[in-house]
């Protein structure tokens, strides 16, 4: 019996009055949908919590007549996505908080609160996370809804003045170790951190709002700007979602090229991290070496896509242009060889270094049990020993036909996260090799893509494994050529959420090492 059926049965037994409907997974990207009501939401959440579901995402859609809160759940053992919805009154939207069960929901709920004006009863700290003080309306609502005056005081989420005697220090937004413009407010006691609170939104670029203003085609450049180190993977998530939504078939060749380029991009992204992580620990030379290798990948990818960083290469139904077979395959093979040698060098330079080992071993330990509460994904979850990888769980592009293993760690400390990523580079190399071997010929793009995409009414959730974890895009279509609502589920967001937990009571240097080991990308978090 599959997971889905089991859940249906158990659910029906427990909740007689609530409907649970099976959704066509191929079309919508989730298996079950449940319509909850304010009264029974918490019970349903409890039900899911007991069955080891983790929360993928929580967001809101404004249907004008009502607001709909959408909760996505899944398990780490088996693919079983469940959409739970909750309709809210648009005038005074109030919902119960689920943050007591799922810690990560604290942030999601704050986000929903600031963008839609939804109140969550029982939320410990319902303040703004992204926006700044001057924004006087709820940006993602379809109509202009001003923020009530009473709420304005919530805008600045952090109030240090209340604690006179503590020592606060700002890490960021301009700080060498926060990888962009993350700001973390640290409360310190000597060298120790008492608590750390990330402040987000310094790079909030309104992607979700933009999506509502642009056609499907016009949104294409945006995903690449969200996660620039792994631009192609985000691009893929979006393109595949739209393809599924419109029912566009993709030729095999395009699938393989997508796989290969994505893996190249993954290596490039990991290399960027491989440089930045030791740099956080004070070693600057690996940075240069890693960029040197990365530069090789960029050369290959530039030859294919035309840009170095923010690729906008995949198109609905295929690719922007075909690869240049000889040079591409040649260069890639050369790169694979070179990279394998370099990995040995990195082992000598970084992995074996006693200082490095002492800095990362047994620091920032994440336990498996927390995976459910925080919903982190990618190398972070794999480091705890859970082999959860969208490429395996829900194969897309050509991953289904290529065999690869998933590296896992043991205890989930910084060292494990490091090792998992290093292994992933190796495995990506294998995948690329395999992909090149099997690369079929044929067209790189389907002909039948209409110039103006007008997908049928409905919604879809599509997830891929980006370099940092599960990246999902949820699109609601209303038959026009612009998405009605687009929501991005980004991995760094939930990965970062574990930081306050991990950094409590540790030395500042350890906290920074931990932050570096996540490989967060701020624009992705801020969107």
């Amino acid at each position, binding site marked *: 019996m599959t997971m889905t059926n089991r859940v249906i049965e158990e659910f029906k037994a427990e909740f007689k009055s609530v409907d649970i409907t099976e959704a066509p997974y191929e079309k919508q990207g989730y298996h079950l949908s449940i319509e909850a009501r304010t009264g029974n939401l918490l019970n349903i959440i409890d039900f899911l919590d007991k069955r080891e579901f983790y929360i993928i995402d929580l967001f809101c859609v404004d249907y004008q007549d009502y607001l709909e809160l959408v909760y996505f759940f899944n398990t780490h053992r088996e693919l079983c996505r469940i959409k739970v919805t909750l309709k809210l009154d648009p005038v005074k939207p109030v919902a119960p908080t689920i943050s007591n069960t799922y810690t990560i929901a604290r942030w999601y709920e704050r986000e929903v609160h600031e963008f839609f004006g939804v109140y969550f009863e029982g939320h410990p700290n319902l303040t703004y996370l992204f926006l700044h003080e001057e924004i006087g309306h709820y940006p993602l609502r379809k109509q202009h809804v001003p923020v009530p005056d009473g709420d304005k005081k919530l805008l600045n989420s952090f109030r*240090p*003045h209340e604690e*006179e*005697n*503590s*020592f*606060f*220090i*700002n*890490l*960021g*937004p*301009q*700080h060498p170790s926060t990888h962009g413009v993350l*700001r973390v407010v640290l409360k*310190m*006691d*000597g*060298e*120790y951190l*008492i608590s750390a609170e990330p402040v987000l939104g310094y790079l909030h670029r309104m992607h979700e709002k933009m999506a509502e203003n642009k056609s499907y085609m016009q949104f294409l450049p945006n995903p690449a700007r969200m996660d620039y180190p792994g631009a192609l993977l985000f691009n893929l998530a979006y393109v595949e979602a739209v393809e599924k939504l419109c029912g566009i078939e993709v030729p095999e060749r395009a699938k393989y090229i997508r796989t290969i380029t994505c893996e190249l991009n993954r290596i490039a992204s990991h290399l960027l991290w491989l440089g930045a992580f030791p740099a956080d620990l004070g070693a600057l030379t690996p940075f240069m070496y890693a960029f040197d290798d990365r530069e090789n990948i960029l050369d290959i990818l530039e030859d294919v896509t035309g840009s170095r960083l923010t690729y906008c290469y995949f198109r609905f139904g295929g690719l922007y242009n075909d690869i240049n077979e000889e040079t591409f395959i040649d260069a890639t093979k050369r790169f694979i060889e070179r990279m394998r040698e370099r990995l040995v060098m990195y082992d000598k330079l970084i992995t074996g270094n006693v200082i490095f080992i002492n800095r990362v071993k047994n620091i920032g330990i994440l336990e498996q049990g927390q995976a459910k509460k925080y919903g982190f994904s990618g190398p972070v979850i794999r480091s705890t020993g859970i082999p959860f990888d969208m490429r395996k769980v829900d194969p897309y592009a050509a991953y289904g036909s290529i065999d690869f293993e998933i590296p896992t760690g043991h205890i989930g400390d910084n060292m494990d996260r490091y090792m998992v990523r290093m292994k992933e580079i190796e495995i990506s190399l294998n995948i690329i090799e395999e992909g090149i071997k099997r690369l079929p010929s044929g067209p790189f793009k389907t002909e039948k893509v209409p110039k103006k995409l007008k997908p049928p009414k409905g919604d879809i959730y599509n997830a891929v494994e980006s370099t940092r974890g599960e990246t999902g895009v949820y699109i609601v279509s209303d038959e026009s050529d612009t998405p009605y609502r687009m929501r991005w589920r980004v991995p760094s967001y939930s990965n970062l959420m574990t930081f306050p937990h991990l950094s*409590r*009571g*540790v*030395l500042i240097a350890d906290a920074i090492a931990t932050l570096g080991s996540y490989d967060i990308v701020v624009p992705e978090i801020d969107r």
Partner: protein
Amino acid sequence: MQTLQEFFHVAVFAVVAVIFTISPIIIAYLLAPRTVGKKTFVTYECGIEPFGNAWIRYSVHYYIYALIFIAFDVDVLYLFPIALSYTKGGNAFEFYSLIVFVLILALAVIYAWGKGVFTWKRKILS
């Protein structure tokens, strides 16, 4: 007057060092243009206006290290005149007093080690 002559150089160098450091600052003062904005003189803190006190209550760890240091520093300095007059060969008495001295000193490290001064545990303050 041997000593005086020796330290005459030290004094002169020290004074010159002071002068040397002041002069470029004066030159810079004369040469540099100035731009003043609203926040130019605000203490730097990653671009955010700092809040709270910079005079922190510092952790006691450092202090204990400093305590042990002071014992060692003073005692090791006592070893210097000893080392100077340490004779080669014979007179094993000197060696014994050295051993006793060093062993007493080692007591401090052993004590601190045993007391866990050198371990920095993760502190969970609830």
